[in-house]
């Protein structure tokens, strides 16, 4: 077994180098785009109607945050692509976040959450966001006790989880269950891939050929989810706000402090080191997970720091062979992925590619806010 797995690693390594040298001809080495099915449901957090309904309420409830002002929905607004339409997410009052807010749509399919994969499940992502000082800034004891003073929640938690009092971990489970219902898999692309050849326009079909061929997008944006869920440094430029906004500079340093970099690195660093904060390996500096592409019509701006405001800018960026940052130019590291090369796309080709990217999005998923139940005094027993 041991030998076997070693062989497999060697084989995978060889495969990678073949891809790199063979370049564009290698498109068929990658899992092809495919219609997106149902999301995986963890065995220890089954979907039920009551749980999803509860999770929806909690997703909107700002009492799951420090000063009862900041709910999940505050940075994941249905009207803003279930994200936040600014380069950096808004953050807790008195702060600004330091990364772009990702859409919740189709997060159910991802193996890891957050831009650098810091959370292993939706159940783990929710508390990280609710508790972080520049996100929800809540504490477990306060948030859990607040739930206990909302009779409607006591009733619902009891029905769903069987506990006398709401338990905060169950709140995250309910929210995760709700998020697993936010599925976007009826896009023009899905219909096309299922056999409806009229689902895409001619331009989009031309764009799809570029996607899997000359433009090489398929190297990372592959499979049913259009992401290999791996981490790359593309040379996305650092967030402009860090140059000009004191509040953003505060958060930038706070993140270095909170994520535990060395003193030496804290002094020097001027950009988001991404995967490095998890692994502390220099080779991971500036790497972020390939994002899925469905629903992107509604989720501008793009990239981990919202550097690009429309899909045309994103395509231009790749056409130029990516960009440069402190983790590509040697200031901190030289980690730019070798997958990126200038593509030499014509204006027409870029147009077709953007048209194809739009085929990853169907109708907007709108949702009205649920009515939130009030606090009530706790009667003596």
């Amino acid at each position, binding site marked *: 077994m041991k030998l076997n797995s070693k062989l497999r690693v060697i084989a995978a390594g060889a495969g990678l180098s073949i891809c790199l040298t063979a370049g564009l001809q290698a498109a068929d080495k990658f899992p092809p785009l495919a219609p997106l099915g149902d999301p995986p449901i963890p065995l220890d957090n089954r979907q039920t109607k009551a749980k999803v309904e509860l999770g929806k309420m909690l997703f909107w409830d700002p*009492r799951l*945050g*420090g*000063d*009862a*002002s900041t709910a999940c929905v505050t940075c994941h607004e249905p009207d803003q692509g279930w994200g936040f339409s600014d380069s950096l997410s808004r953050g*807790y*009052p*008195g*702060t600004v976040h330091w990364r772009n807010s990702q859409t919740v749509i189709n997060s159910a399919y991802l193996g890891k959450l957050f831009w650098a994969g810091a959370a292993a499940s939706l159940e783990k992502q929710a508390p990280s966001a609710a508790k972080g*000082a*520049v996100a929800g*800034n*809540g*504490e477990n*004891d*306060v948030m*859990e*006790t*607040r739930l*206990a*003073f909302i009779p409607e929640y006591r009733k619902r938690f009891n029905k769903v989880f069987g506990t006398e*009092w709401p338990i905060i971990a169950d709140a995250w489970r309910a929210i995760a269950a709700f998020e697993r219902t936010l599925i976007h898999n009826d896009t023009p692309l899905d219909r096309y891939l299922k056999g409806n050849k009229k689902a895409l326009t001619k331009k989009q079909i031309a764009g799809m050929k570029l996607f899997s061929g000359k433009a090489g997008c398929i190297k990372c944006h592959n499979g049913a989810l259009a992401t290999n869920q791996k981490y790359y440094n593309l040379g996305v430029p650092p967030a402009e706000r*860090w*140059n*000009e*906004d*004191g*509040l953003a*500079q*505060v*958060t930038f*340093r*706070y993140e*270095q*402090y*909170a994520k535990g970099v060395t003193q030496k690195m*804290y*002094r*020097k*660093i*001027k950009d988001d080191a991404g995967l490095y904060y998890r692994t502390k390996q220099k080779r991971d500096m500036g790497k972020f997970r390939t994002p899925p592409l469905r629903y992107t019509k509604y989720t501008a701006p793009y990239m981990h720091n919202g550097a690009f405001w429309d899909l045309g800018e994103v395509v231009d960026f790749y056409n130029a062979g990516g960009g440069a940052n402190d983790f590509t130019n040697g200031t901190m590291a030289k980690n730019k992925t070798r997958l990126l090369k200038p593509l030499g796309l014509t204006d027409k080709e870029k147009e077709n590619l953007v048209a194809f990217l739009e085929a990853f999005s169907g109708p907007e998923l709108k949702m009205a806010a649920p009515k939130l139940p009030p*606090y*009530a*005094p*706790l009667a*003596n*027993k």
Partner: protein
Amino acid sequence: MNVSWLRGGVSRALLVTAGAYMLVIPAAAGESGFGPVKAPKFNAKKAALGKRLFFDARLSGDAAISCASCHQPGKGFTDGLALSKAYPGSKGFRNTPTLINTALRKNWFHDGRLGTNLNDVTRESLTEDYMMNMDMRLMQERVKQDPVYVKMFKDAGYGEPSNGSIRKAIPEYLKTLISRNSPFDKGTMSDSAKRGFDLFKGKAGCAACHSGPRFTDDNPHNIGVPENPEIWSDPMRHMTFAAFASFMGIENFMNLRRDVGAHVRLHKADKSDVGQFITPTLRELKQTGPYMHNGMFGTLFEVISFYNTGGGTDANKDKALKPLNLTFQEQQSLVAFLESLSGDALTSAKHVWKDKIPSNYPAIAKWRKQRN
């Protein structure tokens, strides 16, 4: 010491006599050791820095409240409310204690749960979720972003701003908040107040616990103060208490309908510590009503009346409390004495940061070229 004698059932008269002998030792302190509060030494630059931090709302999680939001100089560094407001989204379940003379306390908070130093008290108040809910790492980076602070920290000898030196500077400022010029200290008490002082030391027995220059033994006692019903009828107060009790490891906290007081620290198996609270100082009472750990009494006369009837009703009530049989006039004299323990309001620039403190942060110019 006094406490164990009380428990031993020694009569109050004997106790007061014994207490007087003990307290007489520092002769310079004046009659019965009740002399003026000795001002601690402090570093002026560090204290000035601590003063600005104390009044800066950017030291709370959502930048909405500062230390001074609840500890207001014009109200003797309290908020004048029965129960404090707490951090937005929570509501307090205790009365805000004065910070005047706090540097001389032996322990802090009404339950005495911190017995170390003001550095720890500052940390607790900044970070506790229902107080200022501040992540100190973020606090440090906020302070570093303000050029005024960068200079003040350097000038004070702290070097670059850090969360550690913030927790040193604020206590340095607190050392400056010392009672001054009370009629008691100046020797200008009214005749009624003088009679009250005699009762205080004698018939009324107050001095058994309210001893020393700050008029407190810094020990926990149960005097049977009635529960403040608002804690249990207002879900936001109740939930704040419940979250606190859960954090402090109090069992069955969801079914509690009383503030357990010192039990959060002592955790006595027989629960004899439930309902004990630290004896408060009697300095500056004119500025710091309402009174008791839960603000149940609005006036000093109510407080005296409460003691005159032997305190409240509680299974754990201190046995030293008995009805005092004070006349109306005697009660008034005691109030007059208590009022004579209040001095100058600490509201001048010496104790209050009067300049505007910005709520935002200037950008660091040429940020990419500057070391963090």
